[in-house]
């Protein structure tokens, strides 16, 4: 038994060391980084974070810019915000699709309590470094939400979170474990809407556990991200949040100011005016459920909106 234990400990140690080595690779931002080439006038580097929706948005930007005769280098799937934010700050990436609320609280001002789109954008404009700028926000949001099934919404005539007031005490609410204590989740719903649920069940981050529990009625309402594809495929309804309990998470282009000109800004702003939450949800569904390619989905959106 002892030998086995020793070997296992060794294996875990090796695995941990390998993990460290890998993560060190991922976060190295030195001169050997292929991203450090920078952008020259007339060409831009479009980057993206490492999850499908952001990569799709970057592909939409890239295709539309190319259609307008601008040279585009794609640097997709760079990593989490902690990794790509320093890159765009120094101009190694010119344009990245961002979410205003998350950008503000992760990389710019972690203590901010701004909630509405205008407040969040105002805070960002005031606090972003001078080399960076956010353009006009789109109405598309990938935010936390209180989501219910269509049948439940119809039965209780639910449109907004406020409509839950009379029935909350009979309901079980599902969300990731931190939801129970996070200021904008269970405590926020109580503070802003006076909702006290009968029970809170810890599930996962807008994943299979939350979705299955909501579908089979183990929970009557759940915290889901507004562009979770299953909201469309399983006929869920995300309730309106008129008191801005959940901070805005509008899709917005974050740009390296010296790398863009009025023409590029105009193209990106035109995309933002057409980008809505239902459109984003439909595209996520095509990506995740139907396994369409990024370039197909992006081209389809641009053609449909007459942008390309």
């Amino acid at each position: 038994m002892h030998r086995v234990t020793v070997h296992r400990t060794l294996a875990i140690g090796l695995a941990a060391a390998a993990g460290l080595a890998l993560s060190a690779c991922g976060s190295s931002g030195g001169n050997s980084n292929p991203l450090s080439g920078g952008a020259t006038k007339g060409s831009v580097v479009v980057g993206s974070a490492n999850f499908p929706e952001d990569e799709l948005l970057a592909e939409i930007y890239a295709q539309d810019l190319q259609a307008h005769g601008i040279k585009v280098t794609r640097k997709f799937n760079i990593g989490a915000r902690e990794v790509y934010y320093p890159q765009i700050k120094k101009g190694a990436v010119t344009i990245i699709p961002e979410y205003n609320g998350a950008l503000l609280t992760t990389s710019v001002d972690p203590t901010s309590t701004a909630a509405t789109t205008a407040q969040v954008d105002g805070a960002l404009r005031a606090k972003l470094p001078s080399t960076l700028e956010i353009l006009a926000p789109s109405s598309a949001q990938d935010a936390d939400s209180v989501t219910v099934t269509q049948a439940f919404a119809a039965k209780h005539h639910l449109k907004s979170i406020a409509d839950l007031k009379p029935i909350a005490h009979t309901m079980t609410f599902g969300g990731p474990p931190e939801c129970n204590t996070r200021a904008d989740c269970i405590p926020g719903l109580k503070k802003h809407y006076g909702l006290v649920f009968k029970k809170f069940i810890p599930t996962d981050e807008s994943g299979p556990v939350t979705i299955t529990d909501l579908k089979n009625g183990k929970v009557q309402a759940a915290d889901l991200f507004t562009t979770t594809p299953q909201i469309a495929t399983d006929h869920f309804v995300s309730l309106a949040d008129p008191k801005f309990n959940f901070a805005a998470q509008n899709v917005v282009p974050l740009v390296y100011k010296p790398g863009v000109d009025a023409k590029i800004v105009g193209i990106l702003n035109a995309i933002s005016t057409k980008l809505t939450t239902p459109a984003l949800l439909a595209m996520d569904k095509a990506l995740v459920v139907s396994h369409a390619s990024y370039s197909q989905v992006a081209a389809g959106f641009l053609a449909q909106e007459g942008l390309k």
Partner: protein
Amino acid sequence: MSFFDFAWQWLTTAGHWSGSNGVPARLLEHVEYTALALVIAAAIALPAGVLIGHTGRGSLAVVSLANIWRALPTLGLLVLAFILSGGAAWAWVIPLVVLAIPPIMVTTYEGVRGVDADLKDAAAGMGMTSPQVISKVEIPVALPLILLGLRTATIQVVATATIAAYISLGGFGRYILDGLATNNYALVAAGAVCVVVLALVVQFVFTGLARLIVPAGLRQRTRQS
């Protein structure tokens, strides 16, 4: 602060020892998950292991299968079972049973197979039938190994039952998952310490059990091997 300071601070707070999120309640849930998974796994793996060890038939196939099973990712299996069962509350049973079967089955098989051929010959020569050889010779002789398999499986299941929290259930996994989600490392450390302590208790229980039920004539041999 060190890991143990974190855990100690949390565990010595009186409020953490009562209510539905208190240590006794979580312990009960954890033991419940572990026990049920083990009973089911043993009901499958013990007879299968004895039968294969006794007859020698299908041993390669079954032992290979049992070893391949060990490679199944437990968390993946949990989520799969949860989705396929439509979110059933018992979905946690499947990955834990799958985890517990290989060690029980393989050690039982090895134990029974390894019984001295002369011993079996002697038993048959005394007029024992095949079932009698199994119950009076092979199982008692293989008992130390069978208990070892059960002990290994139990410790693995105690450690892994923490995943039940992933599908909204309780047990000590609740502390670990909730603590990680809220950056409450004292809670994570306390959950981990609870699991380790429970695993140690299991170890002692099995050692005591071996003293009680392994025939005296076999004990000396066990200690040497």
